[in-house]
C-alpha cells in the first residue's frame, strides 16, 4: 500500500466484516472479495500447511494473477494445484518467491521497494535475494527495471523462466532481459532454447550453485529424470550456446549487462 499498490480487499476466514487500518475491507472468502471488489490479483502469505488450498481458492474465484509468497509447501500439494489449474485462466507466480514488481507503478510482493527504479530491464529469477542483488546492481548503474518477477525456488511452481521471458519479449517497455537461475531442473535450458528461436532483445544470465555439493536434496532417480541436466556448468554452457551472455559471478551481473548493452 505504501508503494502505491491498490489494495482493495483482504481475506481471513472468520474475520469477514472487519476493516484493516480503516481502509481495506476484510472478507471470509476469496470469492466474496472478488464479487464485491472486482480484484484481479492476489498475494498469498498463508502458512505452508494450508497454502495450496488458498491458491486453489483464488484460482476458483477467477482471480487472474495469483502470487504465492509462502515457502515450504509440500510437493504433492503443488502437484494438485498444477492439476487444478488446467483449463483455468489464472496465472500463478511462485510459491516460495518474492513476488512481482513494476517499479513506480505496482508491487505485489515482499521485495524492498527502494532498490528498484522505473526503466527498461526485465528481471526474472528463481531466488528472492539474488533478484534484489541483481536489481540493486542495475539501479546503482543508473538503469531501471521494466518489471521484476521472482518465479520461486520450488521444484513445482507456476510461471516459468520461459513464460517470463516470453512476456518480456512481447513487452515494448522491456529492452533487455536478465535471467537468474540456479542448479536443478531444466527450466533455464528450456528458456534458453526459446531465446535462441524467438528473442531478439539482449539476454544476460547467471546460474548460482557451481560449488554446491552434488547429491544433496537430489536422489539418483531425480538426477536421471532431468536427463543428466541440472549442474551449473551444463546450464551455463546451454545458455551460452543459445546466445545468452552469462555473468561469471553474482557481483558481475550489472557490469555484464552494461557491456552487452553497449554492443
Amino acid at each position, binding site marked *: 500500500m505504501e508503494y502505491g499498490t491498490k489494495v482493495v480487499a483482504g481475506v481471513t476466514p472468520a474475520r469477514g466484516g472487519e476493516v484493516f487500518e480503516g481502509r481495506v475491507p476484510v472478507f471470509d472468502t476469496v470469492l466474496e472479495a472478488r464479487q464485491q471488489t472486482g480484484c484481479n490479483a492476489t498475494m498469498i502469505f498463508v502458512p*505452508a500447511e494450508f497454502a495450496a488450498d488458498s491458491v486453489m481458492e483464488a484460482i476458483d474465484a477467477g482471480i487472474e494473477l495469483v502470487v504465492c509468497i509462502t515457502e515450504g509447501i509440500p510437493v504433492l500439494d503443488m502437484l494438485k494445484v498444477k492439476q487444478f489449474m488446467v483449463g483455468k485462466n489464472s496465472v500463478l507466480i511462485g510459491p516460495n518467491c518474492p513476488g512481482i514488481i513494476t517499479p513506480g507503478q505496482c508491487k505485489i510482493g515482499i521485495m*524492498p521497494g527502494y532498490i528498484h527504479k522505473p526503466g527498461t530491464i526485465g528481471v526474472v529469477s528463481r531466488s528472492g535475494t*539474488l533478484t534484489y*542483488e541483481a536489481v540493486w546492481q542495475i539501479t546503482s548503474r543508473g538503469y531501471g527495471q521494466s518489471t521484476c518477477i521472482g518465479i520461486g525456488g520450488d521444484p513445482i511452481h507456476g510461471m516459468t523462466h520461459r513464460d517470463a521471458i516470453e512476456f518480456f519479449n512481447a513487452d515494448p517497455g522491456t529492452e533487455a532481459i536478465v535471467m537468474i537461475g540456479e542448479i536443478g531442473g531444466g527450466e533455464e535450458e528450456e528458456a534458453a532454447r526459446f531465446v535462441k528461436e524467438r528473442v531478439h532483445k539482449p539476454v544476460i544470465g547467471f546460474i548460482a550453485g557451481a560449488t554446491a555439493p552434488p547429491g*544433496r536434496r537430489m536422489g539418483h*532417480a*531425480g538426477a536421471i529424470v532431468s536427463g543428466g541436466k541440472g549442474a551449473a556448468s551444463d546450464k551455463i554452457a546451454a545458455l551460452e550456446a543459445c546466445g545468452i551472455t552469462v555473468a561469471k*559471478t*553474482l557481483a558481475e551481473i550489472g557490469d555484464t549487462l552494461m557491456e552487452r548493452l553497449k554492443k
Partner: protein
Amino acid sequence: MNIHEYQAKELLEKFGVATPSGRVASTPEEAESLARSMISNQLVVKAQIHAGGRGKGTFTSGYQGGVKLCKTASEVGAVAAQMLGQTLVTHQTGEAGRLVRKVLIAESKEIARELYFAITLDRALGCPVIIASLQGGMDIEAVAEKSPDAIVREPIHPGLGLLPFQSRKLAKELGFGPANMRAACRLFHAVYRLFTECDCSLVEINPLVETKGGEVFALDAKLNFDDNALFRQPEIVAMRDLDEEDPREVQASKFNLNYIGLDGNIGCMVNGAGLAMATMDIINHYGGSPANFLDVGGGANEQQVTEAFKILAGDPNVKAILVNIFGGIMKCDIIAQGIINAWKVVSCDVPLVVRLEGTNVELGKKLLRESGLPIIAAEGLAEAAEKVVAAAKGSN
C-alpha cells in the same frame, strides 16, 4: 530426509511390498542370536548407514565390503563384529566414511532376475514418474549413460494415480510372465501408495528381484522424503537418525536454519538459498573455500541469527566468517543485533566480514559500528568476498 534400509523395508512391508525377512542388531552377540532364530541357512549381513555402494565399500580397519553372505549363525556373529563400531567408506560417504551402529541380518534369496524400480518427481512434467529397468542391481546412473534405451519412464497423473493398464504395461516391459504379472502389478501399486501417503521424494527399489521360486521381492530399498511435508508425517520423523547427520546440521535444524556442512574454511551466513549458493560460488571464484551453506531464511528472528552465528563461530575448521545479507522481509538490524548478541556468548576469534544491504540497512550498519566489535565492513559483494578470502588466508 533419509532413513535406513531396514526402516525402508519396514515401511514397504507395511504397504504390502514383500521384502526378505530380516532383523536389526546392534551387537555381534545380538546378530548371532538373531541368526540362530532364522530358518534359512543363506543369510546376508548388511551394514546400516545412509549411503549407497556399501557392498563395494571398505572399512577403515581394512575389512572389505559392507554386505556379506553367511551360512551359519557364528559366521554372522563374526562378520557383525568386523562391521559394528567400524567406519565404512563408500563412493557416497566421502573420505571420512560413516560409523556403522547397526547391521541388518536378512535371508538371502536365490535370485532369478534383478530389476530396477523407482518412483520420483518429474519436475518438467509436474507429476510423479516411474523409472524402471531390466538392468537391476547396478547404479542406475551408469545404466542411463551406457544404455539409455534400457530405461522405461511412466509418468503418473497426480489426480488419477497409477492406472491398472500402466502397471500391466510396466510388468510386461519388465519381463514378468503370466505367473507373476499380478504380483508385480500389486507391488507397483503398493509402492505408489507408499510414495504418495508418506510424501516421498524418492522410492528406489534396486534390485527388485524375481526369485527362482517365483516370488517378487524388494531386495534393497532407498527412501527419501519431502522435507516440506514432514509436519504431517510424524511416523517418518520418528525414524530420523541424528547419528547419521553432520552434528552442525543437527544443531542448525533445531532452530529451523537451512545449513549444509562443507569442507572449506570460510563460514557463511546468508539470507535466501540462491544468494547463499551464489555467495559460496564467489568465495570460490576469489580462491577461497566455503565451510558451509547457510540460509537463515526470510523471517529469521534474533535468536535464530544468534544460533546460526554460534554454529559458525564454534566450527574449528572456520578461519573467517562472511555475513552477506540483502534484506527483504529480513531486516538488516535484526541480523546486526543477532551478531552482537552472539558475540556476547561465543568467543569468536576469527575475522568477521559483514556486508549488509536492503531493508533497514542504515540501522543495521549503525548498530554494528556502535557495538565496537572488530568487524570488517564491506560494501559490495565482490569486495566482501575478496576481504574474507584474504582474512581466512591471513589467520591460517
